[in-house]
């Protein structure tokens, strides 16, 4: 575990997220949460299904906008930025590991990992270099040209992590990363996250898996219930 420094990397101020606002099926997923994420920490957002942790995660990761409240990434107030600016911050700052991994099965491991780099101004050799490093860091060099749909679950997971790392993000966001993994793969994933964190990457994990919550890499836990943070602890 890397010691968290004092400067907040992300600041969430009284954020709410309401889906289908004004409709009969309106859902208040986040009900006024304020929190900070510090550089180098491993934050676990803990809570049962439907508690609002994924909504909070997507707001922090600039994948959706809050209904009200403010989100600051570094010094930038991102809540009301244009979609293009938001995409740019998402691309440059965050790496995402999705619950379902969300690889494109027909693409090779290399192309899947390269996906975030296509719309950048990077040259092809630079891209190749980044992809090589990310793939090497996940020890899947031998599957570089294999189609993502034809590799093992563990290899798919490492491909997804490599993709999250390829843009060298400051923050890695993982949404229920162990939800579909057995104990062995879960342990492998947490080891990989520990290595990342040791290298200085801030990690935010949404989960209700005790294997993650109780893992020694976790530096802070925020417990979410019904769209509110009800508890915060630092193990």
């Amino acid at each position, binding site marked *: 575990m890397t010691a968290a420094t004092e400067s907040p990397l992300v600041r969430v101020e009284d954020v709410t997220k309401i889906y289908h606002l004004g409709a009969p099926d309106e859902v208040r997923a986040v009900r006024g949460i304020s929190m900070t994420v510090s550089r180098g920490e491993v934050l676990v957002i803990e809570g049962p299904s439907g508690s609002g942790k994924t909504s909070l995660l997507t707001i922090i990761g600039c994948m959706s906008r809050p209904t009200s409240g403010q989100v600051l990434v570094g010094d930038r107030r991102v809540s009301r930025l244009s*979609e293009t600016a938001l*995409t740019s911050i998402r691309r440059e700052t965050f790496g995402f590991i999705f*619950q379902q991994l*969300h690889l494109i099965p*027909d693409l090779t491991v290399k192309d899947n990992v390269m996906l*975030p780099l*296509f*719309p950048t101004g990077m040259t092809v050799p630079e891209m190749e270099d980044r992809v090589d490093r990310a793939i090497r860091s996940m020890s899947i060099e031998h599957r570089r040209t294999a189609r993502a749909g034809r590799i093992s679950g563990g290899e798919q997971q490492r491909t997804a992590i490599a993709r999250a790392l390829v843009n060298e993000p400051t923050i890695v966001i993982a949404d229920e990363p162990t939800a579909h993994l057995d104990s062995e793969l879960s342990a492998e994933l947490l080891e990989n996250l520990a290595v990342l964190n040791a290298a200085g990457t801030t990690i935010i994990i949404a989960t209700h898996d005790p294997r993650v919550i109780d893992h020694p890499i976790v530096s802070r836990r925020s417990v979410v219930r019904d769209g509110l943070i009800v508890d915060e602890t630092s193990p």
Partner: protein
Amino acid sequence: MRRHLKILDFALASLRRRPFKNWAIVAVYAFTVAVVASVLFLTQSIRREAAQLFVGAPELTVQRMVGGRHVPIDLAVGETIVAFPSVVGVEPRFWGYTYDAVTESTITVMGAGPGMATLELVKGRLPTHATECAVGAGVASMWGAEVGGEIILIDAATTGVLYEVVGTFESPSDILTNDLVVMTAEEAALFLGLPEGKATDLAVRVANDNEIDTIAAKVKRAYPDSRPITRSEVLRTYDAVFHWRSGMMLAVFSGGLIAFVILAWDKATGLSAEERREIGILKAVGWDTSDVLELKMWEGVVISLTSLILGLIAAMIHVFILGAPLLTPMLRGWSVLFPELHPTPNVDPYMLIAIGFLTVVPYVAATVAPSWKAAVTDPDAVVRG
């Protein structure tokens, strides 16, 4: 620029992932383009060629009509017409048709004279004796008669007449010469059973093109039973005939066109769950809406341009190299002895632009439009699975 090229590169990789589906689209699309382009190339080529051939034709042709039928005209009429101001010459033409039972074809018989200027002799010479003739490529081929050979034709009195072939004609499209047999004017009149002092029609040369209509009106006034036909009228008729035929052909193939439109409409009205998911993934990993739309645009452009180019090449090969064997039964001339078409490769750039505009633009729009809806959605929908 680099960014656009990389997105194009990804679009190509993306298309390669579904080779069967995409090649199937290209095949249907290219076939549609090839059909439309073949019809347009062929009709345009024929019209252009006809226009060129008729450049040397008489400015005015005068026929006589009785009871709505074309009947032989008195040579004396020509003597009156030649006295009109601006008329520089009137020559009688002797032409008609004969059916050849051996080859089961209708042959055009013509007396040597005006109009010959537009025809090119490939070999030999024009006939100078009553027993000689020059023939078009189709007649030569059917009879296996080269220069020095002989053919037998049935005259107006149903008597077989033997002629020596002294020349063969050919023109790039064979429109005028393929089923043609040229004899001396006297022999043609005799062969066709034209009465003494009569001709099939009269070819009138006019010094000033602006005077043609005036001369035609004067002829009509002087001879109410005459039918003056100007060259421009013939050209207009040709144009109209081939416009009509090409329209009919396109109507025949409209089933294919409609199938293509349905295909495009199907694409336009929705994305598959897989496509939506992929767009969500791209957005989630940092692609902008404009990047996703650019990707889809490139996919559409690659598919449609590939299809357009393949379709145009296929149409050019079909029309200009193979002589349009699939279209000529509907588009070629009126003769039973069908001319073998060798249309001159001549493509109007506006036509290419029109074909491209009518195929590429709708297809690209059909590719991009449904993606737009998926691309503007927040990527968190993907995160939620």
